[in-house]
Structure formats: structure tokens, C-alpha cells
């Protein structure tokens, strides 16, 4: 499923990221990449999400969140 449509307060594994190269790079640097485990903290207005990964909270805007496919742990 797409991250922006996943349920909050649950953990997911990232399966695929189809975002633009520069956004993929940003995500990678922040610890979000294929096969990593993330925790969906909150959905914010406009379709963006806050995820927790490797000890940090990351905001991912709507357009990028729609390009991340995840599956529940």
C-alpha cells in the first residue's frame, strides 16, 4: 500500500520508492530506503506523514509520501 494511505501508529517495511532522484536521496540520508522498518506516527493536513525511523521523526510531504510503497510488519 501507499504510505500516505497507511494507518497510523503502526510499523511498516518500505518496499519501493518511486520518487524523484533528489527526494529519494533526501529520504536515503534520513534513513528511509528499501527494506527499512518505519513507524507511521501521524498524518498531517494535506496528505503528508510523520514517520519515525532510526530514532528520528521525519516529515514526508504528500507528493513524496504517495511515491513510497510499504507493507505492514
Amino acid at each position, binding site marked *: 500500500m501507499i504510505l500516505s494511505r497507511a494507518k497510523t501508529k503502526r510499523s511498516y517495511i518500505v518496499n519501493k520508492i518511486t*520518487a524523484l532522484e533528489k*527526494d529519494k*536521496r*533526501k*529520504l536515503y*540520508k*534520513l*534513513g528511509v530506503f528499501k527494506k527499512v522498518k518505519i*513507524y507511521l*506516527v*501521524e498524518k*498531517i*493536513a*494535506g*496528505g*503528508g506523514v*510523520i514517520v*519515525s*525511523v*532510526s*530514532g*528520528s*521523526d*521525519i*516529515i*514526508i*510531504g*504528500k*507528493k*513524496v509520501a504517495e511515491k513510497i510503497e510499504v507493507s505492514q510488519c
Partner: protein
Amino acid sequence: MLKCVIVGHPNAGKTTLFNTLTGKNATVGNWHGVTLKEETAKIKIGESNVEVIDLPGFYSLSCADEEEKITQNYLYSKKYDTIIFVVEAKKVKRAEKLILELKKLNKKTVVFVNAYSDFEKNGGKIDFNKMKNYFGVEVVFGNAFDKFHVGKLLQVLQNDKTTVFTNRKEEYFLPQQRKNKFQDIFLNKYFAFPVFIISMVFIFWLCFGKFSPISIISDAISRLFDYLLLNLLKKSFNMLLSPFLTGLIFDGICVGVISVLEFLPQICALSTCMNFLNQSGFFSRFSAVADDFLSKFGLSGRSLYSLICGFGCTAVAVSSLSGIENKKTKKRVALSLPLVSCSAKTPVYTFLCKELFNGYSFLIISVIYFASILFPLLHSYILNKCVLKGKVENYVSEIADMRIPAFKPLLKSLQKTAIGFIIKIGTVILLSSAFVWILKSVSFDFKFLNESQTEKSILCAVGKALSFVFKPIGISDWKYTVGAVVGLFAKEGVVSSLALLGADTKLLSFSSKLAFIVFCYAYTPCVTALAVYRREFGLKFSLICAVYWLIGGFLLSYLTYFILNL
């Protein structure tokens, strides 16, 4: 001289460590991207003199974004001896790749694991011996603001002995439980927006409300200086100095300086309160919640940091724009920043509002500050539709954890604000007050004029020649024109000039006063800010900005006057 660079992820505690090591007071904040350029200081470690360099945060050596290039280039230059890598304890796993990248630079590397006590309290654990052997580097843990822990770091830096590491890749890290779920409530828009509005109104009341503690202190300072300088000392020096010198020192410099100095408590309180919200992590979280709202104006949550910096100083806010990648978005925010009311304009509003709203001036000042949030957004929206069209950046960023700010960094920041303000008063305001007083006391044939002869002065002639600009808002008094001109050098100069020229704001109508406030709010930023515009965007852009907002300030004030007189 040995050189030591402090590097790490954004918001890891590098600048806090730098401040503790060096005793300096570089700006810290609980936000990613506060440090935007290198800071340098010299210390003594043992017998050696060492230069310590604090660099902006970065995530990767191999693929650096625009804001990370400064650090990347510096590290690749290899013009240093030691690397101190600062990492928050709970994020050590994420930093593994970067630590190994840094090791390949073949410089002595020490890892400082920051905020370890918090990490342990939340169930996390690091086996530091295994960690040292995993990376093959020395590791120190503690809190970046604690001198004892930083002392341990200094001992490691002093140690010249080569330590042998096993380089065994054993698991050394046990993650903590997800800390402080309470902070998640600040990501809820139905909670975050009201908290933002309520906290801002409370801050404005605290700083500007008639019976607030800060206003009482400000009033007391004003009366004390009035009594000491303008009464006691003036009477004593009257007999010893010439009328010209007595007038210059007491009626010029002292009046000008005191008129601005009395706002020191309010400036410090406003700055400390904003810093408290910043250091608590609230603004960082709020930027995530506000991202969707800001996107309607062509901005992203990243822009919020620059807008909030603008409340302190426009020059600092312009410098912070380097974190915005899109050039058109950057220019849009830059052109909108003068509409964010900087702290230097606060004395102007307070001075003009005093008689206007008799104790409820904090309501008008609150309105001005909220306008300072909305008007730049509206301005950016208009620019996005017309001349500086651009895509809204996707906001992908780390957001800070919420915490109760430590007392020491807040105190240091307060100290920095107070000293900066006093230095500005002691230089720009003092000089401008002296200059204004001399010009108002001297005629064109260089004769000294007394108080009753000001109409014959050079300043009056120049002021009257330019006073037509304020006639459309019902102000024909040349003193306001002089105030506006001095305000180009420092906004507080508007207050010092009006005070020492004896401009009686009670004589102005309500609409004229409000129109003049709007002019002071919107017109050209001070020369310091324009210099930063020039540095960041070039001379052409800075001149465009200066002229744009000069015309903009006049137009907005005329419009205000026109609407109020309908």
C-alpha cells in the same frame, strides 16, 4: 596551530559542543539547519593552541545537497587535523555509514555521543567498547553542554597514543523505546495551531501589556535614566561644559539613547520567549503541521524557519535562506521578509502606540505581529502568481524532538541579545542621535542655535523639503521625515530621532499615527539587512528590494490612511 573540526548531522549538538569547548556564544536552536556557515574559535588543549571549527550539519559526504556543500568541501580540503563527529545517542545507527566515510579521510576522528543520559532513561544502551572496536575510533559520551563530559573529550583529543582497535563488527546498540509520545500531540493541527496562537498572544502580553512585569521594568529603567542622566548629571555638567557640548551629550545623545534603551527588557523578553519555543522543538514540529497551509502560498514548511528568524532580525533571516533549494522560492521569501516585523521595529510600535491605545498597545502590537505572519505569505502568493512562479518544494526533513529547554543556552542567548542590542545603541543610535542633534542645532552658516531656533537649522530645512512624502497621511511635521530617514540605518533610530526632536505624537490624528506605523512596518529594511541581501543575491536584487519596499511602505501607509478616513 592544530585544527579541529566539529561535524555531524543537523541538530546533533555540534554548536552546543562548540560553545562549551570554546566559551563562545554561537546561535543554537532545536531545529535542523540553524548553523549555516563555519564558526571558528581558538582554545588551548594542554600546551597546544587549537583552532576549533564548527561546520553546518550534513548527512553524507558522497552526495551533498546545496546546504551540505560547505561541510563537504571543507572536509575534502583536509586542512585540519582532527574530526570530532557529534551524534545523538539514539541516532548512532543512522550515522554508521557517515562515520565510516569520515574514517576514510585518514584524520584522527573522535565520536562524541550526545544526549546519552536521555537515551539510557528511555531504555536504550550502547556498549562503548564494542562501538570503538566496530568503528576503530575513540568514542566519548555525555551531554554537549556539560563541561565535565566535554573535559573527557579534551582528554581524548590530548592523548597522542595510538589505540589499537580490533575492528570487530559486534552489535553494540540497543535502541530506546520511542520517547515522549506526548510530543505527538503537537503534530495535530487542531492542537498545534491554537497552541501557536495562544502562546504568541501570551508572549506579546508579557512583553508589551500595560501591567506586565516586563513593561513595569521597562518603565522603571526609563524613569531611572531620565532622573540620573537628564536631571542629575545634566545639572552637574551644565556649569563645566559649553552649552553646545551639554546640549549634544544630554539633549542629543542621552535622549536618543535612553528612548531606545528603555525597550531593552522587552526586546530581551521577546527574544527569550521565541527562543524558548524554538529550543523546545515546538517550531520545528509546527513547521510540519504548517507545511500544507504554507503550500497554498507557494512555500513549504522549510520557509517557516526563515520567517521566524525574521522576528529577530531580517539580516539573519535572509542568511537562513540558503537552506531553500529552489531559487525562485528563495527570492520570493527574500522579498517577503521585510514584512516580517523584526525586533528593531518593536520600539517604534511601542513608542507610537503608547498614547494611541493607553495600556492596550499590546493588542495592536499583537495584530502587527500576526500581520507579520500573514502578509509575507500573501505577498509570496502574489509573487508566485505573477513574477516569481515556482513549484513548491517537497518538504522532506527531520523534525526535532520536544524537550524542556536547558537553562544555560537560554541564558546565553538572552545575554547575546542584550549585548547585541546595547552595542547597537552604543554605536548606531549614539552616532545617529549625535548627528541629528548637531544638524538640528546648526544653521546653514554654521551658527549654534538654541531650542527655540530649530526651525532655522540645516535639519529642519532638509526635513521640510522631504516632508511632502507624508502629507498624504496627514503628517506635515518634518520630524517624522527625519525619523524615517534615520530608520534606514537602524529602525530604532526612528524612535531616538522623534524623541530628541521632541515630536509630539499626541498631535497626530489616529489615522495618521496608524498610517505612520504601517509605513515603519513595511518600508525599506535597514542597511545591515540590505548588505546581506547584496551578499546573498547580488547588488541588483538588493537595490530592487530597497526601492520596492520604499515605494511599498508609502503605498501601504497611504492606503491605510485612505481606508481609515472613508
